[in-house]
């Protein structure tokens, strides 16, 4: 898929870019820099993944060595552990529910901000924009008390609801320009054809804002998948842990079993990595719209 996209892109943009990059900017230099850059970015991740294929003895004797021989036991042990799958499932539920909730609520609110004329419209936008100033770090202590009073500690709902709330500001800010950019004529045409504003929302707005929805959805998913501070406060029972907490408790419990820690860690990062690499192009596309405002 990426190969097809790559060639398609190359054929459309080549003439312009070539004239833009002077003859002095030779490809070899570019590739050397790019290779070094990638090596730096990827090496620590590879250390984790490859380290999981070694034994503790190998790691102790030769910390920076290659697996010799490659052992699958660490990964097999993690994959056979019910706790890993339990925490994996918790992460999936938390991330999926957060993503759906965030996108649905933000899309509805952005639709109101972008397409309705009413007195509080700017105030509503400012409210969400101001949310960028209210980060989780500041709210976490009282938020924990609030969740405790609601009886939602050790409950995935106790992290999903705040995650949605904290994802709303960025999501709304990215989505509003998308919805505002839908031509007025489409809305009028829909009205003439008898569609209500709500009908317009479902028939036209949803499909047309899909790029923005996908971008914000991925960001919400990845952030929820990686969320650490909130689960740290809210979830105390290992069976309710999401994977980041699981990784941390596993690595402190098995601090001598480095190989197992590396295997557990690398298995827990795969879903977010897959999700992101499939949709990477969409993210840059979605942000382009937002940056241009």
């Amino acid at each position, binding site marked *: 898929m990426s190969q097809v996209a*790559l060639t398609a892109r190359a054929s459309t943009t080549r003439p312009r870019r*070539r*004239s*833009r*990059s*002077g003859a002095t900017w030779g*490809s070899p230099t*570019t590739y050397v820099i*790019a290779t070094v850059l*990638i090596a730096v*970015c*990827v090496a620590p*991740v590879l250390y*984790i993944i490859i*380290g999981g294929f070694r034994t503790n003895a190998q790691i102790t004797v030769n*910390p*920076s060595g290659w697996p010799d021989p490659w052992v699958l036991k660490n990964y097999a042990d993690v994959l056979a552990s019910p706790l890993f799958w339990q925490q994996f499932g918790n992460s999936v539920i938390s991330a999926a529910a957060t993503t759906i909730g965030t996108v649905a609520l*933000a899309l*509805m609110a952005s*639709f109101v*901000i972008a*397409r*309705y004329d009413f007195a509080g419209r*700017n105030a*509503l936008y400012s*409210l969400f924009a101001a*949310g*960028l*100033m*209210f980060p989780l*770090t*500041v*709210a976490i*202590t*009282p938020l*924990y*008390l609030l969740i405790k009073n609601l009886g939602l500690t050790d409950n995935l709902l106790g992290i999903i*609801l705040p995650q949605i709330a904290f994802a*709303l500001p960025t999501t709304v*800010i990215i989505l509003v320009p998308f919805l*505002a950019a839908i031509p*007025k004529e489409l*809305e009028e045409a829909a*009205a003439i054809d008898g569609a209500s*504003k709500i009908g317009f929302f479902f028939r036209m707005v949803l499909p047309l804002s899909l790029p923005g929805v996908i971008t914000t959805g991925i960001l919400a998913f990845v952030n929820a998948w*990686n969320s650490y*501070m909130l689960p740290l*406060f809210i979830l105390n029972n290992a069976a309710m842990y999401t994977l*980041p907490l699981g990784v941390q408790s596993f690595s402190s419990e098995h601090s001598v079993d*480095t190989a197992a*820690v*590396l295997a557990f*860690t690398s298995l827990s990062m795969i879903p*977010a*990595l897959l999700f*992101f690499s499939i949709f990477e192009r969409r*993210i840059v596309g979605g942000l382009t719209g*937002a*940056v241009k*405002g």
Partner: protein
Amino acid sequence: MSESVTALPQRSSRSGSGRGAAKAAPRSDRARADWRKRFEIAILAGPAIAIFLAFVIFPVFMAAYYGFFKWKGFGAPTNFVGFQNYVTIFTDQNFLDALAHNGFILVMSLVMQGPAAVAFALLLNQNIRGRSLIRVLIFVPYVISEVIVGTGWSLMLQYQGALNDLLHNLGLGFLASDWIADPNVAIWTLMVIISWKYIGFAVILMLAGMQGIPDELYEAAAIDGASYWQIQRWITLPLLGPTIRVWAFLSIIGSLQLFDLVYIIWGQYVASTAGTSTMATYMVREGRLAGNYGYGNAVAVVIFVISLVIALTYQRFVLRRDTAGALTEKSDRKAA
């Protein structure tokens, strides 16, 4: 994102669409349409507003309230102590150290990541084979969680770990050091890890900003015979200004709130002796872990106020340039 952060993007026409028909209709119909509109607004925006107020805004105000009490978190707070918590915070050397670390991280993040991110984005904005793959790989550190980054790096940077071993094998053994525990080195280790983790996000933003620059400008410059570097210097950089300033804004806020990486790598107790504690790790350690919820909330308020003052100052003096043209329009819209 720059304009949209500070001001609501406008539709081309603000006259209500779909209500042209309603104008000709009888009065009762119009009133009914008005009610219908209000109902739709409430249904559509209500849930988002409710959840946002309940879980974002309300807790911050509660923090301000709890911060005036000496309180262990059980029952209602009764032991009102006024500003004593705040006095304690600002006389505690541990907090002042943490604040200094946050300041250092803030400045160094801008200095280390900004130029590098622009350079990498320039590199990746070219039409080179394999660009998609390079872009995905560069974003890998950004996508994996802080816990994984922290766990992986701390194993790698142990004194008996992979990095020191690698340095020995390369004959650079004299460079080996106790990357995490040595107070002279630890904060630089943290800076390297932070830069590694977050530069992908900066590059995404810069790339998005570069793709928003109209092609015509590049074509015109090329026709005028400008070299690649001249084009980047006089077209890309100035037009990328708004994106860079928004990125810097997000980076500043992130530096002030830094928690996860430090807490995971250095734990709650080692951070202060290694010289990497931040205001947020101080807050969790002295608040939640010590059971002093009143005090923890007061620290949260301090973090919030410091962040807010820096953010508003930045918006006033730096981001204002990006909305200078729309300033008059902005002031009567009161969209901040």
